[in-house]
């Protein structure tokens, strides 16, 4: 088989895995399993990035999501009334509307992806080390303002989230 066929095979494999684990997120009653399913889904997406030869983004995606989903699993256990799913609590509403909205979104996106004329495919792709070099030049050149703004936005949201989460002080001195 040629490289392109293998690429297509692994794209489909990891893509279906990502979608399947995405479905498992909302099908299981256990919240920890939900968080782990989302982690596997995001990891499969990271693997798709690597298949598409975006190694840096793939590794970044896997590392970032592993951390994020670990935090999410902790929050799940803290906040849910039934984190283990032992009572099989119903935690969904307006299912029919949600299914219809998801179905319409799926059909619209599928129609665009298969019917649109995307133009010719790119002939060649820079290798991994050259990509990182080019991305560095992009980040510290033309896109520097956007890049710095993203960093500042993360800092601001961290401070804002912490301020929102801190318990308000009561006038008597206690928290």
């Amino acid at each position, binding site marked *: 088989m040629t490289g392109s066929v293998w690429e297509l095979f692994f794209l489909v494999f990891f*893509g279906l895995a990502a979608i399947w684990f995405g479905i498992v997120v909302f099908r299981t009653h256990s919240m920890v399993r939900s968080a782990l399913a989302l982690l596997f889904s995001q990891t499969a997406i990271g693997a798709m990035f690597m298949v598409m*030869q975006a190694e840096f983004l793939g590794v970044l995606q896997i590392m970032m999501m592993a951390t*994020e989903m670990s935090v999410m699993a902790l929050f799940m256990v803290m*906040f849910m009334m039934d984190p283990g799913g032992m009572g099989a609590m119903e935690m969904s509403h307006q299912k029919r509307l949600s299914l219809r909205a998801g179905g319409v979104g799926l059909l619209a*996106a599928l129609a665009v992806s298969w019917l649109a004329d995307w133009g010719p495919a790119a002939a060649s792709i820079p290798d991994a080390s050259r990509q990182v070099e080019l991305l560095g030049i992009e*980040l510290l050149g033309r896109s520097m303002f956007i890049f710095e703004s993203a960093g500042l936005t993360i800092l601001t949201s961290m401070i804002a989230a912490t301020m929102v989460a801190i318990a308000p002080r009561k006038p008597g001195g206690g928290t």
Partner: protein
Amino acid sequence: MIVELSVTLSIGAGLFAVGLYGALSQTNLVMILMGVELILAAALVNLVAFWRYLHPDAMSGQMFVLIVMTVMAVEMAVGFGIAIARFRSRGSVEMEEARELKG
């Protein structure tokens, strides 16, 4: 037609549909955040596919991916901040009980 691009965009469409279903159907704030994460993941898949199959020499495509990853992190941070505040004041993050802002 670029088959790999269309297949990857279809996978993105599937992730978007699952995420949209989750964001609309779940009653728990943390589960709604998971749905939004899947929608943003679909956007990531599409961006990487466009970069890879149409413009691999233009690194602004990868730049967009980094921005969407930033949005994912910010969304989680703010969402969890709100979840903690809500849990502290009401003892629950069930959104069906959050009717204070309803007109």
